[in-house]
């Protein structure tokens, strides 16, 4: 469904702050794969996701989604295939627009914007139904501005928007990191529900090792721009946090630094 072949990316090449963010990453996701991505700060997790999304182009390598080569497609053209939720709850929604307007924008993902009215009565009913499944009471607030919602509500709405038109690949970039633990759990449960119901191919970056182990059918670990671990299926189910730490040390040849990964 999603294939990365030898993706390389260097930021600010030829300057003192040159940073090799990705060292030739290759990865293949089957349809329905739910992959969690872990790694320390600066490991290249977000760069990986942003390269897939087209925020910037890789220096080398090829990206295909569902057999379509998207390597040179602009961000807005790739959006046809991708659903995205960002770390910042404000990033995924338009704050000054109504909930229903945000959903209507997302419902037309990958379609050209015409001079037809931006929303239809039929859609509105459908949005109300879908919002009700979130269990947050948003179904009665269709014409509230999104800026009035809490971070968790906005993130839940972003998730719904990303999956409203079924994406070939769902990209989640630490989408629970900015939320309090309870809200984070709610949003994660909702993520699992949406992913399983629609059998979505998903790539979820997280800082939380336990979340990474508990969710999904496959886990990959990144370190300094390389994939250093790729475990799936039953082997993944039996993994524990100490196992992961040990595997990290063997693979990277260094001890896990005292960054956020250890604390969570």
């Amino acid at each position, binding site marked *: 469904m999603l294939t990365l072949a030898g993706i390389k990316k260097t930021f600010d090449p030829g300057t003192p702050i040159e940073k090799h963010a990705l060292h030739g990453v290759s990865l293949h996701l089957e349809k329905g794969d739910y992959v969690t991505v872990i790694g320390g700060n600066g490991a290249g997790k977000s760069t990986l996701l942003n390269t897939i*999304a087209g925020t910037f182009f890789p220096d080398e390598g090829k990206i295909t989604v569902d057999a379509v080569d998207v390597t040179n497609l*602009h*961000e*807005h*053209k790739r*959006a*046809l295939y*991708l659903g*995205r939720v*960002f770390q910042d709850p*404000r*990033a*995924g*929604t*338009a*704050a*000054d*627009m109504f909930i229903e*307007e*945000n959903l*209507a*924008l*997302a419902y*037309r*993902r*990958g*379609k050209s*914007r*015409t*001079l*037809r*009215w*931006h929303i239809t009565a039929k859609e509105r009913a459908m949005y109300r139904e879908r919002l009700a499944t979130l269990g947050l009471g948003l179904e009665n607030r269709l014409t509230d501005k999104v800026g009035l919602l809490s971070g968790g509500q906005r993130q839940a709405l972003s998730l719904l*928007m*990303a999956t409203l038109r079924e994406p070939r690949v769902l990209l989640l970039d630490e989408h629970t990191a900015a939320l309090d633990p309870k809200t984070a759990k709610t949003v994660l449960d909702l993520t699992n529900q949406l992913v399983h119901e629609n059998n979505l191919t998903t790539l979820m970056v997280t800082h939380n090792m336990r979340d990474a182990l508990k969710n999904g059918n496959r886990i990959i670990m990144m370190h300094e721009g390389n994939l250093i671990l790729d475990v799936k299926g039953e082997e993944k189910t039996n993994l524990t946090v100490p196992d992961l730490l040990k595997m990290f040390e063997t693979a990277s040849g260094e001890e896990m630094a005292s960054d956020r990964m250890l604390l969570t």
Partner: protein
Amino acid sequence: MFILQFFENNWIVMQGAVSLGIIFSLMAMGVFLAFRILEMPDLSVEGSIILGAGMSARLISGGMNPFLATLLSVLVGSAAGFCTGFLHTKLKIPSILAGILTMVAAYSVVFRIMGANNVPLLPHGPQRVTSVFTFLQDWGLSRPNAIILLSVVVVVVVSALLYCFMGTEFGSAIRATGNNRQMVKAQGINTDIMIIACLMLSNGMVALAGSLWAQQQGFASVDMGIGTIVIGLASVIIAEVIFRPRRFWTSLIAIVIGSIIYRLIIALALSVDFMRSTDLRLVTAVIVAFALCLPLLRDNIAKLRKFIRNRGNT
């Protein structure tokens, strides 16, 4: 009371202020589109108003049908908006600078179009000024009434069209672009196109205002556009401070009223004996500064009241 008396005694001044206010509300809506909807400070507005005025003056004085001339003027304004949008989105020039570049270039272009600093609309000798208002005068309306009537019709039609446009899928994408470009890209929308389209629309409306303005006063001059952006902002801010509109259509109505109020304030200020007409821009700047700090003033007055009340209690 003084104010009412002033306007009663100066009926013609007031009529002029109202008609200018209505015409300039089109410009203020254009400024609103760029500054508030797109959240992009667009200074090319200064250029498009004279492009609209100069183009109309030249074409009408050359004998063209005023309606056709007005339409062409709008297109020239849109072209200026396109330039700014292109400079900003495709050539990655910061929006303020992109607007300034277009504005500066527009001054030269207007000189070329007009061929002189000042172009009157009189085609042949001391006849009646030919303009879009002429046909209403032929029906027997006085010139000031003809101007007000037609301007009102134009403002109503344009704002209705604008409202409908902003409710379409395309318009909705433009509004979202002003809100959150990142999100809009993730929804598969080309933000560059939305920005360019919105600036073309906004500058087209400003040029329409410029065109009607030239036809209202009977001439166009190269320097008439200076300070336009501040006048537009003044109208928008007056509208926001007084009416606090929450929806798009209430914003549009508020802007029309705000634009008229601005003109009345100016007329009133300039009626004071020692003021000269060249003080207009100074007065405008003061009004904008005052309107911008109103929320702060309001807070402080509330605090002061509370303080006095508390002191009275103890």
